C-alpha cells in the first residue's frame, strides 16, 4: 500500500480496534470474572477491579473432579483424531488419484452428509446402541465422531493430496512398490503439513462437540464441554461460578492451539475456498 491519508488510517485502525474488542470481549470478560467471587463477578455497579481468587477453579477441578472430564476429553479427542486421520488419509489419497465417476459421487454424498444436522441421527443411535448394548462406551462415541467427521476429513485431505504430483507415486510404482507401499513410504512423508492441518480440524470437531458427547455417554464419561451443561440452567451461585471456571478451562487449550497453529488453521480454512 502506498501513502494513505490520515483519515483512512484512523478509520482502519479504529475499526479494527472496535472489532478486536467485540471479538474478544465475551471471552476476556469470562476469564476476568472466573477469578472472582460471585458477588464481585455479577454486581451493580460493575467492579473493574476485584480481589482475585482461585476458589472457582479449585472447587471445579478438585471438588467436582473436573480432571475426570479432562481425561475423558483426552481419550475421546486422541481416539477420534487417530482413527479419523488413518481412515481419512486412505480415502483422501484414493479420491485424489482415481478418475472414475464413483469418486465424484462419493464426494457429493459426503457433502450431503456434511450438511446433515447431527441430531437427526440421534434417535436411531439411541435405539440401535441400546439394542446392541454399546451405548455409554468411549469407543462408540469415538466411532460416531469419526464417522460424522469423515465427510469433512476426506474432502480436506483430498484437496491436499491433489497438490502432490502424480509422478511421485508413479515413480514408486515403476520401482516395484505396491499402491499401499507407495502411499505409505512416498506420499505420507511429504503430506505431513496437510495431515497436521486436517488433524487440527478433526481435533476441534471432537473437542468442541456438545450434542453427541452429552447424549451418547453418561456423566462419568462426558467430555469437558458436555460436563458444563449444568451451568446452562444454573441458578445457584456456586454452580454458576464453577461453570464460568469450566468455560475458561475449556478455552485455554484452544487459545494455545490457535497461537501455535495459526498458519495451519488459516490454510485449512482457505483450502476448500481456493479450490472452489
Amino acid at each position, binding site marked *: 500500500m502506498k501513502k494513505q491519508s490520515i483519515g*483512512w488510517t484512523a478509520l482502519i485502525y479504529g475499526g479494527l480496534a472496535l472489532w478486536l474488542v467485540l471479538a474478544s470481549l465475551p471471552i476476556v470478560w469470562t476469564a476476568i470474572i472466573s477469578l472472582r467471587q460471585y458477588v464481585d463477578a455479577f454486581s451493580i455497579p460493575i467492579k473493574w477491579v476485584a480481589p482475585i481468587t482461585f476458589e472457582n477453579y479449585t472447587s471445579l477441578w478438585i471438588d467436582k473432579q473436573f480432571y475426570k472430564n479432562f481425561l475423558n476429553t483426552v481419550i475421546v479427542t486422541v481416539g477420534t483424531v487417530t482413527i479419523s486421520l488413518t481412515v481419512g488419509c486412505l480415502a483422501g489419497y484414493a479420491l485424489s488419484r482415481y478418475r472414475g*465417476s464413483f469418486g465424484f459421487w462419493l464426494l457429493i454424498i459426503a457433502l*450431503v452428509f456434511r450438511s446433515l444436522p447431527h*441430531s437427526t441421527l440421534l434417535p*436411531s443411535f439411541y435405539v440401535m446402541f441400546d439394542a446392541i448394548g454399546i451405548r455409554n462406551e468411549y469407543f462408540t462415541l469415538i466411532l460416531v465422531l469419526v464417522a460424522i467427521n469423515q465427510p469433512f476429513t476426506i474432502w480436506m485431505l483430498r484437496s491436499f493430496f491433489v497438490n502432490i504430483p502424480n509422478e511421485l507415486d508413479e515413480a514408486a510404482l515403476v520401482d516395484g512398490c505396491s499402491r499401499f507401499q507407495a502411499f505409505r513410504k512416498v506420499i505420507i512423508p511429504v503430506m505431513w503439513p496437510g495431515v497436521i492441518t486436517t488433524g487440527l480440524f478433526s481435533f476441534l470437531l471432537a473437542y468442541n462437540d*456438545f450434542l453427541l458427547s452429552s447424549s451418547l455417554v453418561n456423566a462419568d464419561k462426558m467430555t469437558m464441554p458436555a460436563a458444563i451443561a449444568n451451568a446452562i440452567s444454573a441458578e445457584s451461585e456456586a454452580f454458576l461460578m464453577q461453570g464460568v471456571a469450566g468455560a475458561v478451562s475449556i478455552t485455554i487449550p484452544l487459545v494455545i492451539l490457535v*497461537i501455535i497453529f495459526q498458519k495451519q488453521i488459516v490454510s485449512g480454512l482457505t483450502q476448500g475456498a481456493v479450490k472452489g
Partner: protein
Amino acid sequence: MKTNTFARFVAPSVLLMLSLMAAPLMVTFYLSVRNCVPDMEIVKVQQSGPFGTTESMTQQVKLDSSGKPITLCRFVGLDYYRSVLGLGSAQSVSANGNEPPDSSSNAAANHRSTEFTGALNFTLLYTLVTTPFVLLLGFLVALGVHHSAQRFRGTLITASLMPFIITPVVAALSIKWLFRDNGLVPYFLSQFDISVFWMAEAWSARFLIILYGIWHSAPFAFIVLYAGLQSVPQDSLEAATIDGANRWQKLRYVTLPHLMPLIIFITLIHLMDAYRVFEPVIVLTQGAFTTSVQYLTYYILVTETNPYKASAAAVLTTAGIFVLLIPLLVKTWKEQRRGG
C-alpha cells in the same frame, strides 16, 4: 488408479459412513412410522398385613424370560409427522399413552401444535439474517487487516479466529453471562436508562442468538476473504487507478468481482452451518421462546424421551437439508454430465 484398488482404499471410510450415517438415517425413517410402548399387564398384588390379607390390582410392565421388559411395537403411519407438524391430534398415538396427555395449559398445547413450523421459521430467520451480516462484517475486517501494517496482522488474525474456534457451547455461555442480569452489557445500557431482561423475552432471546451467530461465523468469512484479497490482481487495480477510478470504484468493479466465488463459497458453508444451529438455542433460551430444527429433535428425544416422534422431526429436518441443497446438487450434476 484401478477401481479395485480405489475400492480397497476407501473401504474403511465408506464403511464407517454407511454404518454410522447412512444406516442410522434409514433407521430414522423406519422409526418415524412406528411406535413402541412397554407391554403392561394388570396383576393382583396380595399384601399380608396385621389385619389379614388385602388384594389390590396394579399395573406392571410385563417381563420376558430373561427379565427384559416386553415392548409392543406397531405401525402408526404418519401419525407422528402430523403431531410434529401440528396437523390435528394423533389419535392412535395418544391412545398408546406415549404422548403426554393434553391436560396442560392452552398455551403449552399451542406451542406444541406449531413445534416444527415454529422451529423451521426461526431457523430460516436465523439463516437469512446472519448470512449478510457475516459476509459484510467478515469483508470489512478482511479489508481492514489487508490495509493494516504487516506487524499487526499476526495478532489480528489470532484474535479474530477465537470466536470461530472456541467451543460453541462455551461461546454461547460467555455471551449469556455478558447479558445476564447484573452482567456487563445490562450495566452499560442502564447508564442510558435502558433496561432489558435479555433472556426473559422472545425478541431479545432471538436477538442474542442471531448476535451469537454473526459473532461466531464472521471470522470464517474474514479468513477466506482475507486470503482472497491477497490474490486480487495488482495490475488490474493499477490499471483502474490510471483510468481514474476512485477507491469505491476499484472495490466495486475490480475487488468484488474477483472475490465473488469466495462469497458464494462462504454463503454455502454458512447456510449449512446455520441450518443446524443448536448450542446458542439450548444455552440462551433453553427452548423457552424459540427453537431450531436441530434443537427440536434433541428436545423431543431427551425431554419427551420419545425416539419415534423425534425420528419424525429428524426426517423432516433431513428433508429440509435436501431442499436447501437441491440447487447445488443440480448444478454439480449438470456440470458432471457436461464434463462426462
